[in-house]
């Protein structure tokens, strides 16, 4: 019998009989059941805890950086110490937070659920990925404990390979090991998406989150090994002085940069593509509308993955590569912006004439659109050879990549965490606080990083802790913004933990969203679905709610 008119977000709190008695979280309480789990959902939780830990460590280094930059003089720390601060901030944030966060937490949890599978293709390799991540983390943290690294997260030779007196090898070993965690996760996702989709789930019926993670996984598998072998070469050079980057015997330090950036540029797309996948899920749900241009968004993910490998030289415009190579890389860098722009257009078009509401996930998503656009457009400036010569190695670059990494990826990560939190934990977080925190994050972010565009354009170099006095006001604004941003991050940390015990219990589909993950309980059972789902329609069929409402109305009229 047709029921009353459906209103989205109406049924967020679970009825008592809806609360699942057995699910993946209470399937075992021993340490062994967690540390030897092969359940992708539990592995996602393991990552959630440890990734958050590394985020806090990386954030701590940022605090020291911004503290020192409050004043023009070097009054908090010596140059060598400051070098270590920004280096370790970069290493922790890039390798231990940004690269794993969305894929290893949200991806691990959701990929099997979204395609209707019982687990990833290789559950034990999934667990191995986490252990490898942790071992790498231990080595890198050891480097921190034993006095730090000061080469910059980019490890340029010959400083890293010959002249630095810090714990380069320890950090390099840690990053080398963690790279394999990334490779194995990517490998797992690729095979899973090819081989384990539920009946009826064709490629073009998959959620765009899956397309995004597929594209990300391609980059992880194809790019990471190159930086791995490059790190090995730096280690060999440092330990045995084999000469491979030593100009005295004909070695070329620029070769390191080529090999390093061959991975590290695509790596930034490892960081942003999953965020774009989250975006497609959030924008559609909170506009109650299917995505505009599904195929365009899907193929743009693949295009980004491929073209991202062709642009790395734009990090080397001023370092001595040939001008011709610079021009080729510049042109290709313009090209790689196109698929990203397509996504932004399509998300915006999805909003148009949608039924938009502003819960926390949507606030983060809308923030992403604006901030990613700024980050992306400033990337166009940097692709322009002449402009880059002026602003390379200044705070303009720092602002550009933080707009994408923090304004983009972290916002999407937080939006996704909020969106799927009820599914992952079976609990609802407080709505009011979540919206407030999202606004605090947005304000704090812009206050931190917009002044840095100005600083960079005016000429303040990056990685310097001493600067001319006239830059102080902007630096103080930036540091003040960082404090606000920190508060904005702290608030969800508190209420998420609070919600685990005291949040209302969530229904199976509190957001009235489409997608197979919402067809199972919150939290899901260990085996994900009681019966393997069969897919008969496209993704994002938000129109079905209107159809069902129309049927219900007809029924009442009869």
């Amino acid at each position, binding site marked *: 019998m047709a029921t009353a008119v459906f209103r989205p977000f109406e049924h967020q709190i679970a009825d008592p009989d809806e609360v699942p008695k057995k699910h993946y979280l209470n399937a075992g309480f021993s340490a062994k059941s967690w540390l030897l789990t092969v359940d992708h959902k539990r592995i996602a939780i393991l990552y959630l805890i440890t990734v958050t830990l590394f985020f806090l460590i990386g954030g701590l280094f940022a605090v020291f950086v911004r503290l020192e930059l409050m004043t023009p003089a070097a009054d908090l720390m010596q140059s060598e110490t400051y070098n270590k601060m920004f280096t370790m901030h970069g290493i922790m944030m890039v390798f231990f937070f940004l690269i794993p966060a969305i894929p290893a937490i949200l991806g691990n949890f959701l990929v099997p659920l979204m395609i209707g599978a019982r687990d990833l293709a290789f559950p034990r390799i999934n667990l191995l990925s986490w252990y490898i991540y942790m071992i790498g983390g231990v080595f890198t943290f050891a480097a921190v404990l034993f006095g730090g690294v000061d080469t910059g997260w980019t490890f340029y030779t010959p400083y890293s390979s010959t002249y630095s007196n810090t714990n380069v090898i320890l950090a390099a070993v840690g990053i080398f090991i963690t790279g394999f965690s990334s490779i194995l996760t990517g490998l797992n996702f690729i095979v899973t998406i090819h081989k*384990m989709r539920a009946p009826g789930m064709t490629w073009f019926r998959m959620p765009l989150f899956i397309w995004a993670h597929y594209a990300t996984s391609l980059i992880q598998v194809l790019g990471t*090994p190159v930086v*791995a*072998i490059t790190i090995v070469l730096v280690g060999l050079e440092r330990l045995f002085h084999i000469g*491979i980057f030593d100009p005295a015997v*004909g070695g070329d330090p620029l070769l390191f940069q*080529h090999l390093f950036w061959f991975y590290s540029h695509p790596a930034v797309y490892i960081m942003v593509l999953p965020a774009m996948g989250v975006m497609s899920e959030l924008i559609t749900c909170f506009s109650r509308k299917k995505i505009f241009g599904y195929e365009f968004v899907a193929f743009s993910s693949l295009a980004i993955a491929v073209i991202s490998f062709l642009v790395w030289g734009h990090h080397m415009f001023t370092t001595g590569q040939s001008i011709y190579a610079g021009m080729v890389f510049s042109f290709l860098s313009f090209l790689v912006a196109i698929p990203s722009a397509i996504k932004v257009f399509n998300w915006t078009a999805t909003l148009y004439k949608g039924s938009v509401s502003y819960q926390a996930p949507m606030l983060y998503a809308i923030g992403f659109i604006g901030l990613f656009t700024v980050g992306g457009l400033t990337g166009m400036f940097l692709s322009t050879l002449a402009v880059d010569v002026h602003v390379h190695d200044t705070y303009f670059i720092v602002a550009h990549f933080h707009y994408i990494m923090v304004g983009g990826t972290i916002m999407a990560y937080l939006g996704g965490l909020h969106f799927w939190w009820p599914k992952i934990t079976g609990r609802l977080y407080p709505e009011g606080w979540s919206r407030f925190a999202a606004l605090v994050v947005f304000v704090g972010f812009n206050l931190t990083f917009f002044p840095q565009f100005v600083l960079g354009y005016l000429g303040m170099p990056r990685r310097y802790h001493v600067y001319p006095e006239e830059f102080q006001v902007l630096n103080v604004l930036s540091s003040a913004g960082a404090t606000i941003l920190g508060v904005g991050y702290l608030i969800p940390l508190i209420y998420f933990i609070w919600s685990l015990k005291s949040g209302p219990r969530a229904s199976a589909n509190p957001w009235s969203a489409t997608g197979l993950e919402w067809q199972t309980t919150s939290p899901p059972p260990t085996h994900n679905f009681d019966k393997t789902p069969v897919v008969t329609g496209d993704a994002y069929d938000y129109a079905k709610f209107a159809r069902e409402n129309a049927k219900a109305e007809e029924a009442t009229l009869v």
Partner: protein
Amino acid sequence: MSEHHPALAHHFEDLDQQFEAAGLGMWAFLVQEILFFGGLFAAYLVYRMSYPEAFIQGSHYLDITLGGVNTAILICSSLTMALAVFYGQQGNRRQLILFLFLTIVLGAAFLGIKAVEYTHKYHEHLIPGPMFHPEEAHPPQMQIFFALYFAMTGMHALHMVIGIGILVFLIYQARQGRYSVEYNSPIEIFGLYWHFVDIVWIFLFPLLYLIGRH
């Protein structure tokens, strides 16, 4: 009633899906191996182009006989590995174990010859670094040739060692009766890895041993 083969993992529908997934997984791993070694080949490409004479002179220190014999040994080991897969698919445990064992023997022989070569290089003071001291006059960039020689053959040898370790494990599993006509995919999957390591050497041999020999 569907039979539930003991080797079928709970998240797969059937052994076919499991085997196809395992194969794809190994190929994805080999793709990253291609790029892993590829970084070394890229360095080789750049430096050989930049310093052709230094590379020719460096190559002349390598023993073509030992290198050629090693190439033949690895090709034989690929044959024995392929035959191990063949007999594994047929459920012939004795022949499977025999050919896995032969593959180990050949792999060990390869590593033995490499150890001999490395020892020669050590005595000739050709280890790159502060001890690099060849007797003949040479361009300084010849050290880079040897840096790449040791890095590339060393990384290759490490992969061989790991491969031999896995072969030992496979023999152990075979003796426990784990493999049958229905389930022998680990042999085939490992075979892909072993053949890949052979392919790396197929490129290393001419690139390191046969430069400017005319």
